[in-house]
């Protein structure tokens, strides 16, 4: 039998359909891999028994001819999606024992498609971070090793670090993520995966633990562009329970991958050539440009003049919304309570003990930016700059069909690096944040290795609702780059 943990999701679906193996067999192999790769700490809660039960039900459905679109495929669910009866923590102490009484729309959509849940993937606490080092449940370790200093553990990126590590380590066939400022695209780049954040409004946010409501969007990780497209298709769709969910039909994303980008105009934004960008990133970007050119696309130089203000804009808006969203954790309705002498001190004790350092930092920044006397200077100002950033994109999309940029300014760094200065860590998302602020679909595709043998990703940004173009260009780069490298630490099973 072929190696069940190394095949793509698309191949596994064919194998299941052709009765080459069952979902129980496929799932068991992934559960074994999960046990082998436990030291990566990719999961906060593993659900192997549930997975096997779901797999066996899937096999029955398939036998009865009722298989869903992704029936029997074992996946990892970022622990930010509420899952009924399964602990959901947002990687926080304050929700350490929270058991949702309802299912998020995205995870319900996937259950309807027949997926099998291996567990709840680790993440940065409340999705705040770019390295998966802010989780209350410990760091996630990337399955990749730096070839020139392989004693160091590397970050998988963040915030969806557990999801990315699980898929890269061949523990999980695909995984859900959420992306507020790059939390799918950056870990996808660091772990050598395809990761797509669709247009804001494409996936319902109902039941996703809120960080920054005007930016949060669910998306998908796969080892191939096709797998990411297949997962996204089953996650997406209109949901009346989310007032920002779009009442639009969901295209067949996988079908958009035609391999043909001939005559398409690909914009190269000059402002993404930032000061201090390593030469190898610049060279790698140039290679990407050559790849789409060779595929018949036309390269257009474009300008997004407000790019340099995207990160500071984000670090007003996201913390402001977070401070408002996280006000709900008061030790009364759910979550941790640390009693004080009165109600106010109960709130204060609970929140001081329940939130990690980065979460507290962001709540503080947000509270400050929203406080009386500063609201106009920071929050309204940031919302105005946000409009200018969004207008920049609108203008360039008059001249081109998609944009091509690096996903991150570096490859994965060692755990502990960039921790001395929060702003340094924030700049990791310099290329992903602008599209988030404009609500645009963006995807990272693995397209090569750096001199340390670590994956690098290229980002494709598209027009609103045009995930199909993003996937099409992504697939064409995937084909040209022929990225076949695998991480060193996988959940490989002897025999």
């Amino acid at each position, binding site marked *: 039998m072929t190696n069940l943990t190394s095949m793509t999701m698309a191949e596994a679906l064919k194998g299941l359909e052709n009765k080459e193996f069952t979902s129980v067999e496929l799932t068991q192999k992934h559960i074994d891999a999960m046990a082998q790769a436990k030291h990566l700490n990719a999961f906060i809660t593993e659900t192997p028994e549930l997975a096997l039960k779901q797999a066996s039900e899937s096999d029955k459905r398939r036998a009865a001819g009722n298989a869903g679109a992704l029936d029997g495929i074992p996946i990892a669910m970022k622990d930010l999606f509420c899952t009924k009866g399964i602990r959901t923590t947002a990687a926080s102490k304050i929700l350490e024992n*929270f*058991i949702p*009484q309802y299912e998020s729309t995205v995870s319900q959509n996937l259950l309807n498609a027949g997926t099998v849940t291996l567990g709840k993937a680790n993440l940065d606490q409340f999705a705040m971070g770019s390295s998966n080092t802010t989780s209350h449940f410990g760091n996630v370790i990337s399955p990749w090793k730096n070839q020139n200093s392989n004693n160091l553990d590397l970050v998988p990126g963040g915030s969806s670090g557990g999801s990315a590590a699980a898929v890269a380590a061949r523990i999980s066939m695909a995984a859900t993520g959420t992306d507020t400022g790059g939390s799918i695209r950056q870990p996808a780049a660091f772990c050598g995966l395809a990761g797509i954040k669709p*247009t*804001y*409004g494409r996936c319902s946010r109902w039941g996703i633990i809120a960080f920054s409501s*005007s930016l949060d969007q669910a998306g998908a990780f796969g080892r191939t562009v096709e797998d990411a497209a297949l997962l996204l298709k089953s996650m997406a769709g209109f949901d*009346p329970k989310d*007032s*920002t969910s*779009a*009442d639009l039909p969901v295209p067949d994303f996988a079908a958009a991958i035609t391999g043909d980008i001939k005559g398409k105009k690909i914009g190269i934004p000059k402002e993404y050539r930032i000061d201090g960008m390593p030469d190898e990133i610049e060279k790698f970007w140039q290679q990407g440009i050559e790849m789409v050119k060779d595929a018949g696309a036309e390269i257009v130089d474009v300008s997004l003049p*407000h790019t340099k203000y995207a990160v*500071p804009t984000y*670090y*007003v808006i996201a913390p402001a919304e977070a401070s408002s969203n996280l006000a709900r954790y*008061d*030790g*009364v*309705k*759910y*979550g*941790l*309570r640390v009693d*004080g002498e*009165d*109600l*106010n*001190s*109960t*709130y*204060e*004790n609970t*929140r*001081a003990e329940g*939130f990690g350092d980065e979460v*507290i*930092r962001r709540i*503080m*920044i947000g*509270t*400050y930016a929203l*406080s009386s006397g500063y609201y106009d200077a920071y929050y*309204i*100002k*940031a*919302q*105005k*700059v*946000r*409009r*200018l950033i*969004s207008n920049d994109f609108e203008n360039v999309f008059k001249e081109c069909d998609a944009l091509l940029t690096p996903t991150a300014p570096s490859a994965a760094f060692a755990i502990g690096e960039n921790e001395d*200065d*929060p*702003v340094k860590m*924030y700049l990791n998302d310099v290329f992903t944040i602008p599209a988030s*602020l404009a*609500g645009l679909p963006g995807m990272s595709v693995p397209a090569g290795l750096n001199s340390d043998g670590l994956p690098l990703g290229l980002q494709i940004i598209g027009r*609103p609702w045009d995930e199909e173009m993003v996937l099409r260009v992504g697939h064409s780069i995937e084909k040209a780059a022929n990225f076949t490298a695998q991480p060193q630490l996988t959940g490989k099973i002897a025999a």
Partner: protein
Amino acid sequence: MSLTKKDVAKVANLARIKMDDAKLEELAPQLSNIIGFVEQLSEVDTDNVEPLASVVDINLRLREDKVTDGGYQKEILANAPDSLEGYFVVPKVVE
């Protein structure tokens, strides 16, 4: 703009997060650094620019004004740290 320990204490109070002196000392320079970083936004000319609150042109939908869901008292209280006879229990608020 540099935040003093006193400023941080005020914000911590607004955010209802208990902080001892050491934490205030630690946060003051960190927050000042972040605020200093975001202050570069003041360079941008935003005269006559409308603030952008939502990126997606979706009109908020209205639904019919009738009860469509509910009756989840048990579920709502299921994760409460303390509850009694269908209520959340909090420390005494009034004397």
